[in-house]
């Protein structure tokens, strides 16, 4: 508990350590920067070619204008690659002191003791710390940073990389494909169940630095894995860009859960593409929490390709002053008897804005699909805003699809009741919000749930004070 408070405070006020880098690319993006990144990483030729093709696509594609306002992003004013230390570190004590201190504030070592099977802590563009418990290695589970994954499992990476999300998917997927660095590579062999969550932490710690991690997860037949990523960032005055790509392949009868809590500082553009392909009887679960950033656009997707596949998307968004959380999910039903659910809970306050944006698509012949969408928005004051943009494309008649949406405000009777029990108005409000998002928070690992509750209270204190 005491730890939790310390974490929340530091999250809020941000903490940044002196920058200490081995290599920093020049600002802005062109062919030479991409070539330099590829060369620094000593990559195979196919990846270099893929990067350069992606760059061309990025340059041709227009900025998306259908969602949040992205007009202030200046692509020429961003560092696209920074390499913080000279080599991969294996043990905690080998890490540079300032990085260790930063992670101590987030609480990684303790979390590791309790919950983790392995940690990939990404500092700037590259994973610097990587540990993995032997028991999983013995079972053939691979959990590496993406750069190492490419080096050590080149053929596997080549087979899947960019197959769920091609470079041409959208402008930011193209950007990521051109300049990606770090992220995680996970392979779980058939029938292996990784029953402790694998965790990774991402941070941005340099002004104007974009972070373009790339994650690829392959869960082979009948296997199970839960991957958890948490993002925090110190507060900086200039804008930063975070454009990640996450590709997941859930094989027959396999199951994958991917949990994200992002708490980027309020100057970060967080534009992430996440997609899973789910085969027969497979299950994909996205638990996606968005607290920070200036603008987030993120719609985790499930493409249900095999009979009986299931996709679940739990989306949580909190928008404070100056923030726009444009979040939601996409379910694409491509086979009979597939099922899915999207549950979205959003809270906006102090002038913040949340949008639910979702897609439900059922192709002809995908019979007996069952799908349920529920989005609830809580708006705390008159200055704040929430919108819903659901899209349905259903080409099959024999389906069950439900959609519910509700917008609510904090109830005065609830506030009176809780304050009559001695809780301050701030504490009561926080508690009501925590209760509102509880259906999603209860799906988070305990430490995240505790942190989140603390963060909400802190947000409320700042909203009032």
């Amino acid at each position, binding site marked *: 508990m005491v730890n939790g408070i310390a974490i929340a405070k530091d999250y809020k006020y941000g903490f940044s350590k002196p920058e200490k880098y081995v290599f920093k690319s020049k600002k802005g993006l062109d062919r030479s920067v991409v070539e330099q990144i590829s060369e620094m990483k000593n990559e195979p030729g196919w990846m270099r070619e893929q990067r350069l093709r992606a760059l061309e696509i990025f340059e041709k594609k227009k900025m998306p204008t259908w969602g949040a306002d992205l007009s202030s992003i200046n692509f020429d004013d961003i560092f696209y690659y920074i390499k913080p230390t000279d080599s991969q570190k294996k043990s905690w004590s080998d890490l540079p002191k300032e990085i260790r201190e930063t992670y101590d504030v987030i609480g990684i070592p303790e979390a590791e003791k309790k919950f983790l099977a392995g940690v990939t802590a990404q500092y700037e563009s590259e994973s610097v710390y990587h540990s993995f418990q032997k028991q999983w290695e013995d079972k053939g589970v691979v959990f590496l940073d993406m750069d190492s994954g490419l080096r050590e499992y080149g053929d596997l990476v080549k087979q899947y990389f960019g197959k769920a999300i091609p470079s041409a998917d959208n402008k930011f997927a193209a950007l990521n494909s051109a300049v990606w660095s770090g992220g995680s590579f996970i392979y779980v062999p058939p029938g292996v169940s990784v029953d402790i969550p694998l965790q990774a932490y991402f941070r941005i710690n340099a002004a104007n630095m974009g972070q373009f991690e790339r994650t690829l997860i392959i869960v082979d037949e009948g296997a199970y894995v839960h991957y958890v990523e948490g993002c925090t960032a110190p507060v900086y005055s200039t804008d930063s860009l975070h454009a990640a790509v996450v590709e997941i392949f859930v094989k027959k009868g396999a199951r994958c859960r991917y949990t994200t809590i992002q708490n980027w500082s309020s100057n970060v553009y967080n534009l992430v593409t996440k997609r899973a392909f789910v085969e027969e009887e497979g299950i994909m679960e996205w638990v996606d929490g968005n607290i920070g950033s200036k603008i987030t656009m993120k719609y985790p997707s499930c493409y249900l390709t095999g009979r009986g596949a299931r996709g679940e998307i739990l989306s949580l968004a909190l928008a404070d002053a100056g923030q726009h959380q444009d979040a939601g999910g996409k379910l694409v039903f491509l086979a009979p008897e597939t099922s899915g659910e999207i549950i979205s809970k959003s809270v906006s306050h102090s002038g913040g804005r949340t949008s639910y944006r979702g897609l439900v698509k059922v192709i002809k012949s995908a019979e007996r699909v069952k799908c349920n969408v529920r989005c609830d928005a809580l708006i705390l004051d008159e200055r704040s805003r929430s919108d819903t943009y659901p899209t349905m494309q259903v080409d099959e008649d024999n389906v069950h699809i439900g959609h519910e949406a509700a917008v609510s405000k904090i109830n005065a009777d*609830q506030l009176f009741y809780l304050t009559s029990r001695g809780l301050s108005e701030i504490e009561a409000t926080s508690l009501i919000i925590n209760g509102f998002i509880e259906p999603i928070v209860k799906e988070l690992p305990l430490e995240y749930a505790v942190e989140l509750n603390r963060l909400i209270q802190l947000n409320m204190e700042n909203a009032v004070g």
Partner: protein
Amino acid sequence: MLRIANLKVSIEGKEILKGIDLEVGFGQLHVLMGPNGSGKSTLAQVLMGSSQFTVHSSQLRFNGKDLKKLTPDKRARLGIFLAFQHPVEVPGVSVFNVLRRAKQAISGPVSGSSHPTSSTKSNSERKQQSPGSLRALAGTPSAAATRGLSAFRQELLEYALSLKLSDDFLRRSLNEGFSGGEKKRSEILQMMALSPKLVILDEIDSGLDVDGLKLVSSAINQFRFNNPRSSVLLITHYARILKYLKPDFVHVMVDGKIVKSGRLSLAREIENKGYQAINF
């Protein structure tokens, strides 16, 4: 301890309380009766600090402190507790979570290290204070504050048991899906847990069957036994709960005014003849 003088209250320009005078001393049980719409519940909410009413010129003092400017949480911290007539549902927030925070706000930290000597002392205190069957209902606020979170949970579980609330009660969302009787017993459980100095029970007897009424009454009696200086203002429409409780004073409120005060016999009179028959 509570002193109300010439209390006038309105809502949206309509006067509901038209000059209430009431004094409640330490350890007393006052019963406030009256027909529907007489303003009883308004008085309860105004005492707790509800912001939906406008309080006009009046005196409202609790242990010498002026209540008028205090928000509900500050009043709760002074030791005022309201058992609501219609407790509101708070989805996703457990009974335990609310009570833990409430206890902390009112009596100081619940968690934290429990000092061995103080916990020994509190145990012996408990034994001395409470020989009755509901021994668990004892526990002074200061003692509870030092015993730590798990001890607090244990205490609550014992209260829940004594009120015939289920094992998982503390984990349930506050008032969500509770039956009418469960809501009332939950309010009483909260009263027990927070050991307030002034308890306002707003129609605690409505929605209770005979067994529930007995349970709640016996809990109120036990509470008064364990907290001899705490006072109770019980608001009710019917006299039936007075079969189990012995009030020091009975007041009758009609149309925003206390029209008659007396002893238990006044309640009997109302029960037999109805409000209309009372000679004001």
